[in-house]
């Protein structure tokens, strides 16, 4: 079975991220390339979000089974590290999905300056009520990619997708 690049991306767009199932592995920027070779083998290139992301094996399995279910005979999944994944690759529509799901989308990733020691941080907008009167509770959260905040207005704790 022959697939166009668009068809492959459409199939991969149905594969949810295992830890943030409201967005797909394509929207998250994990899928870097997808194509089909002359011999019919589908090649997918993925990149990890974090060096120790424990979901990479799951993602590879899910990508493989989605393509096989769509009729691909052979699938090759390759992992690359460069260019290093950044939250800047997440498109606006996916950010809106995160917000509706209760996760504050990432701000712009820091670039340039090597370290930002004890710098003041802009408060993150609450995904529930939109207030910017929020406090960072923990730099680290339930998965490698999230931090925990609390809204001082609606009193809801919420996750933030860390900008890296």
């Amino acid at each position, binding site marked *: 079975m022959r697939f166009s690049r668009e068809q492959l991306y459409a199939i991969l767009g149905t594969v949810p991220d295992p830890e943030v199932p409201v967005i797909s592995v394509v929207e998250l920027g994990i899928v870097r390339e997808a194509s089909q070779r002359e011999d019919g083998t589908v090649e997918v290139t993925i990149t990890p979000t*974090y060096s120790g992301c424990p979901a990479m094996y799951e993602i590879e399995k899910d990508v493989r089974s989605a393509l096989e279910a769509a009729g691909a005979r052979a699938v090759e999944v390759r992992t690359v590290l460069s260019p290093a994944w950044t939250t800047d690759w997440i498109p606006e529509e996916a950010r809106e999905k995160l917000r509706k799901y209760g996760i504050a989308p990432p701000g712009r990733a820091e670039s340039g300056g090597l370290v930002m020691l004890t710098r003041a941080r802009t408060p993150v907008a609450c995904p529930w009520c939109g207030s910017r009167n929020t406090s960072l509770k923990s730099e680290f959260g339930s998965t490698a990619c999230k931090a925990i905040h609390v809204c001082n207005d609606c009193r809801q704790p919420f996750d933030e997708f860390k900008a890296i």
Partner: protein
Amino acid sequence: MAAHEEGDAGGIAAGEAKAGTGVVAAARQAPLAAPLVEYLLRIGDDRLILGHRMSEWTGHGPILEEDIATANIALDLIGQAAQFLKLAGAVEGAGRDEDALAYFRDGVKFRNCLLVELPKGDFGDTMVRQFLFDAYSVLQLEAFTKCGHETLAAIAAKALKEDKYHLRHSSEWVVRMGDGTEESHTRVQASLDRLWKYTGELFATDDIDAAVSVLGVSVDQAGIKVRWDAMVTDVLTRATLTRPADGPMQLGGRRGRHTEHLGHLLATMQSVARAHPGASW
């Protein structure tokens, strides 16, 4: 595994072949692998051992947020270690992957610096050690992103983002505890005084550094030291802590001469893999 055992036997035999008074010393000290493999083991082992020490806080953090933080930092470091060790194994070309290198090497074959293998101590000890290492790590990784080895540069670029985040966290804790209560100030100052003599090893250079620089993998250790000093002094000043004087420094880890603590750590870290070789789940 077979390749690993054969490699060891070959190394010892080569040492014995030299005969004479060098035999005991040669057999006791693990033979040096190709310089780049040695170099990559140093980078990977630093992160593997520090990651394991951080993981010891899982379920024992002083507060829930820090329990999560230490587990996340451990996960990042162990993930980075897996990448560096995988590369070391590939360069070595003897069939050892990252798991073989992490779980089936004995203490004398580890190349981490002594700082990272010291017991986790109290939360102050852990955060001061983490801060001293993070400040070094971001500078080292940044240098690797510009080096001539493509894979090393790619792993470093990824790890750098994570370690910048770790540094922000550890430096904030150093400030909070140093400029905190009398009790917290006294204790982190004592941690700093105790750990300082292990910081010199981070910047020490030897023939391995010289050999890899020929391959385009060079880090200006002296230049990094100047920037590290500035960064550390800045944070310690904000933390109202006194920077210890540079006295004699403890060395040896890069050549496999470790403290007694590494053996105990490895006994825990490697026990499951060695009891059930090849197990998967």
